[in-house]
């Protein structure tokens, strides 16, 4: 290959640096919510940025680069889960259960909320973290993108490659599952609903 055929390195390289500085925290936060275990999240983050470097010619100010990065993260996470399933199938790796060890808050040695935040977080909050980590991958991806990152259904569908109605269904299933998991740590709304007072809450729900 002659040098003239190589992709222009300068501007694209600088764009990677700018993109990293702007979205490094977003990518890590999303990876943590998807992967659960800090070590898995760190591997995922590194893979994402290496993928970005390889495809740096696609970086553009005109595109929503955060959504692009989240798409890469979600797809790489899905691939990692698939590979892990294959390894388990051939008994090459032990199953990593989502239990207290993978609790994204309690077991985080670095990068998790600091000791102060941990102390402040209630048992219900930790239970929510555990329940979130226990959701099936697609439900968790949709839930995080909708409820935490605030993307619209259509955008999530585009990012994950699923129809909008599927996004809504996955979101509903995730919420139902979380509610079942968190029955003992129900938010105020659940307690209120069980007492027959939920109608008042609905008006402030949105």
């Amino acid at each position, binding site marked *: 290959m002659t040098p003239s055929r190589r*992709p222009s390195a300068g501007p694209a390289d600088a764009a990677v640096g700018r993109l990293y500085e702007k979205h490094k925290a977003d990518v890590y936060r999303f990876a943590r919510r998807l992967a659960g275990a800090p070590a898995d999240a760190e591997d995922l983050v590194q893979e994402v940025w290496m993928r970005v470097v390889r495809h740096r010619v*696609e970086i553009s100010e005109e595109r929503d680069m955060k959504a692009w990065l989240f798409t890469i993260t979600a797809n790489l996470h899905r*691939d990692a889960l698939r590979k892990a399933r294959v390894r388990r199938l051939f008994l090459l790796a032990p199953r990593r259960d989502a239990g207290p060890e993978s609790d994204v808050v309690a077991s985080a040695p670095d*990068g998790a*909320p600091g000791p102060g935040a941990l102390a402040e977080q209630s048992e219900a909050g930790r239970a929510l973290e555990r329940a979130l980590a226990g959701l099936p991958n697609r439900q968790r991806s949709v839930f995080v993108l909708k409820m935490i990152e605030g993307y*619209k259904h259509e955008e999530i569908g585009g990012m994950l490659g699923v129809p909008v109605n599927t996004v809504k269904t996955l979101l509903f299933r995730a919420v139902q599952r979380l509610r079942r998991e968190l029955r003992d740590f129900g*938010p105020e709304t659940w307690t209120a609903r069980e007492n027959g007072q939920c109608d008042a809450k*609905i008006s402030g729900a949105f």
Partner: protein
Amino acid sequence: MRCKNIRRILTDELDAGTGGGPDAEARRHLSFCRECAAAAADLAGIRDRVRALPRPDLPAALDARTRRAIEAALSPAARPQPLPRGMVAVLAILTALTIVVVFPIVWGGEIAEPLTFRSAAAIALLLQNGVMLLIAPILFRRFGARTAPRRIDSPGGL
């Protein structure tokens, strides 16, 4: 209004984010349907709880490691290099020999017996070319012969 429609409205409301809540007809349904009222309360309650969770900070060690990895990947040493001229010459000679020596023999459909030097050379060249075909993809990957980068913004593209 049916429960199925209400749940669609509730999720659409999450998208709209107007804060106004569902319309009057939906509110009427929610006032008597416990299931849908529960769904509405679940959506809002869980959303608020999740948004209140502490946001994990990027660990400094991971930040430094990733930054180093990016710099290394962008360094000139990591850039794809063209195939060395010597390797290109070897490939060209092998191709020419195949055409000049092997092709007429194969075309003729005969290999002299007992094996002559010419037939042995032809067989050796065939084997060599076979091996080269096998390792050529590795060489091209190693030396970075690139095709046009695949777009990765499609969900199935990664």
